[in-house]
């Protein structure tokens, strides 16, 4: 079945059967860096629409898991399935095309480019005109460029960044930079969004706004979200489930309040408030 979502974009609506299958599945993932086992026999299942937290002390391997999912690293063992399709050996840009978007622990914006351009670049994979059209400025090029600028502008407006559109990304205040990174990720029209410590460096008010934002985008864009966080307030309030890692292994996978009581989790460094 093909229907249209809020943006008027085509979207294949899953029938009820496949809605039960996990959007993302990691099976027995193991990753070595030289002699170091960074991730060990890691399993994870994410259902469509869920909001799951990935927590654990520093160095537990959480960002490595993200990098494995997005194809930056290849696991030595195990499989990663997106809607049943294996992602092993698939290049990062192809994985983005298949519907996984992410943000980075240390913000990776296109610093010298405008806010608008940062978002427009993320739409690139949906652009249909080619080299000749760009060079000769055909009518279809002009039309698509206008549409592109329009969509990017609309997306920025949803997140109150439209006034920043012409400014260089490096000049934005920190909180807006984090927001822009999320907006850019959303511009790729993902099914699964990986957020790597989105609350890092934020004050309590900003964190509250962030949590609202995460809820909002999950609803609005029909996303599945996997979130790495150290701020326990965030994890406890918005995550339906948490997977806890320590030394590359999963030591718990349960509801947040259950994790709080789990002795293994307590023993591992639970993270700071």
């Amino acid at each position, binding site marked *: 079945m093909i229907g249209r979502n809020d943006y008027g974009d085509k979207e294949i609506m899953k029938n009820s059967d496949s809605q039960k299958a996990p959007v993302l599945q990691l099976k027995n993932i193991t990753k070595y*860096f030289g002699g170091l086992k960074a991730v060990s026999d890691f399993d994870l299942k994410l259902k469509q629409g869920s909001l799951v937290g990935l927590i654990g002390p520093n160095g537990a391997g959480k*960002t490595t898991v993200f*990098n494995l999912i997005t194809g*930056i690293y290849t696991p030595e063992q195990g499989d990663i399935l997106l809607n049943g399709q294996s992602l092993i050996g698939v290049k990062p840009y192809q994985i983005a095309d298949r519907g996984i978007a992410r943000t*980075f*622990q*240390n913000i990776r914006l296109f610093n010298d480019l405008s806010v608008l351009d940062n978002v427009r670049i993320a739409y690139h994979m949906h652009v249909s005109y080619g080299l000749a059209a760009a060079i000769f400025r055909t009518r279809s090029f002009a039309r698509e460029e206008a549409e592109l600028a329009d969509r990017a502008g609309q997306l920025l407006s949803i997140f109150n960044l439209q006034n920043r559109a012409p400014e260089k990304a490096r000049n934005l205040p920190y909180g807006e930079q984090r927001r822009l990174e999320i907006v850019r990720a959303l511009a790729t029209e993902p099914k699964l969004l990986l957020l790597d410590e989105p609350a890092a460096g934020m004050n309590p008010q900003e964190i509250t706004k962030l949590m609202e934002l995460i809820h909002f985008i999950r609803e609005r864009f029909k996303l599945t979200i996997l979130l790495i966080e150290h701020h326990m307030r965030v994890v406890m309030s918005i995550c339906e489930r948490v997977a806890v890692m320590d030394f590359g292994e999963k030591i718990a996978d349960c509801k947040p309040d259950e994790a709080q009581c789990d002795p293994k989790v307590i023993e591992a460094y639970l993270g700071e408030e």
Partner: protein
Amino acid sequence: MSYFLQQVINGLQLGFVYALIALGYTMVYGIVRLINFAHGDVFMVGAYLGYFAICYFHLPFPIALACAMLGCAIIGMSIERIAYRPLRSAPRIASLITAMGVSLFLEYFCSLKFVFSPNYLAFPRPFAVRTYQVGNISFSTIQIVVFTVAILLLVILQYFVQKTKMGMAMRAVSYDKDTAKLMGINIDFIISLTFGIGSALAAAGGVLYGIAYPQINPFMGIMPGLKAFVAAVLGGIGSIPGAVLGAVIMGTVETMSSAFISSTLRDAIAFSILILVLIFRPTGILGKKGTEKV
């Protein structure tokens, strides 16, 4: 077979001279991430200083060598102070272009008539040259001097870098400049010192080159400088043993290509090997695989 071994020895001789230049490149790159294009020209100035020390001041070889090394150390440190230090916080390419400017300046300034003049000069041999036979292979005093001086300097350098406090400071700065600063290390001093030592070694290379291949001119530093730089990259830029390894490989490959294949193609062969090595080992033979934190 003996011809082959003879060429190996010639190759090693050239390789050790390249090593002395390559060390300057690798140490400076390790500490400020700059490809110091002017380094080959410091090598050239060193050769000329040695020339004047021997020809005009009639200094004995070791003193002449020391004077050339000291002179170039001062020149190298001055260049750093005047041309590179102001650009330390600027984009790296700006320092690179400035280095090219310094290189051109040194070459053309030295080729002015009242300086060194653009003509080729014959470098004197400040000691008696004798040939020794070991089986079918001949060694000359020149080769013995080159090997001895080069190895001696390398050993001293290695000791300095690994076993002294200043050497440790140099290594610290090359790993993480900001943290080293926080630990109380005087960054400016260490960087100057690095340039000074690198330039002194290049000067030694220049004097030895002059003795071994006795024609010098103001543009003599371009190709050896380039090859020494390539050698440093080949061995893993930033790695001192890597620079020596890369230089020895470059020198040997160049000499062997010249002897067994064709002397006109020798540069192409050397650089093709470079490209092949980089394709399979992108950070050089002994280079650290710099994994970017994602």
